[in-house]
């Protein structure tokens, strides 16, 4: 059983790596902004599988933190990437 879960974790990790190829290729900003989301959902699954395989229940708390912070990071990406698109009236004017 633990072996199977570890194989599944390795497989999901490989899928995340595959997805990162797209993030690297781009071409648009939207593809790049997906990185934090991809890594978020992927590494949460890897963590949970890894934790269940090794019997380390505290890993769930790490996954919980990761879920929150990945959401924060990806929304910050979109916010700042979009803010610099808009004209100077908005964010570019320091006062």
């Amino acid at each position: 059983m633990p072996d199977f879960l570890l194989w599944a974790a390795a497989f999901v990790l490989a899928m995340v790596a595959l997805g990162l190829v797209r993030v690297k290729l781009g071409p648009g900003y939207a593809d790049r902004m997906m990185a934090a989301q991809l890594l978020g959902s992927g590494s949460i699954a890897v963590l949970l599988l890894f934790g269940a395989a090794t019997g380390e229940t505290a890993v769930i708390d790490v996954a919980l933190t990761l879920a929150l912070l990945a959401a924060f990071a990806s929304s910050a990406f979109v916010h700042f990437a979009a803010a610099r698109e808009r004209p100077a009236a908005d964010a570019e004017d320091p006062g």
Partner: protein
Amino acid sequence: MTIVVNSGVVFLLLALALWTVVAREAFLAIVGFVAYGLLLALVWVSLSGIDVALTEAAIGGGLTGALLIGAAARLRATETEARAQACGRPTRVLALVVSAAVAVALALCVLVLPDPAPTLAHEVAADIDATGVGNPITAVLLAFRAVDTLLEALVLVIALIGVWSLTPDGFWGGRPGMRHRANPDGIFGYFARVLPPIGVIVGIYIFWTGADHPGGKFQGATILATMWMLVLMAGLADAPPIGRRWLRIGLVVGPLVFIAIGLAGVLVPGAFLAYPAGFAKPLIIAIEVALMPTLVLILGLLLAGAPERGARP
């Protein structure tokens, strides 16, 4: 069997590190860096450091990423100029040789590490019962090496003073960072209304569970600080002017309580930061509770940056 997962993590980690260095634009490099930070949390789990994994997931992935992306958005115009000054081939080759030499030297050191490894785990295991906390990391941070944690809190305060000292003269006492405006009825506004209540509960849970399980004040405070910043980014609230009295009190209350308890230790058990027998756990909790608001404020304000507008909203 774990070696397959771990090798995969190592490969991805090195690939992402290379990405952050060779990426053409700062924005792309930061995307790689955030992915790298999230992946580092997996490394710490493999290295049996759940507490460190929590810290890394919170700070490496989220907080540092948001800090860098905010700066990159403002400094975008200077990137082409910096690219024009890129160093020539001889410098690159020399840098490659130097960094490869450092890496190889470190790798050799790793391979000849002494066996059996020196460890303080036995000392921690022998004395942890005297502290009353169940999590060995918390016991080290707040009892055995409490002076490190005190100095760390002071380093954070000093870093914030450093950031504030960059304020242009006219704006001293003003509000940090720029005013974020977003449509409060848009999706981002909605997101920033729903996520923070959940985040606050998770942050307090991580803080509270730190006494006996992995977790603690730094991790909890980071989560709370990011939720605060989310509300600021969505334009639902504004950063407080740095001259506010409650803010100043909040910034020093943690270190002051810490120092006061440390000085009280000089009187009763006879050494700085020594806890009287039987009172270790209540005193540790008092320090943690006092440090919590200080850490949230400092981490959030470090992210917000130096004041650059007046105190009026």
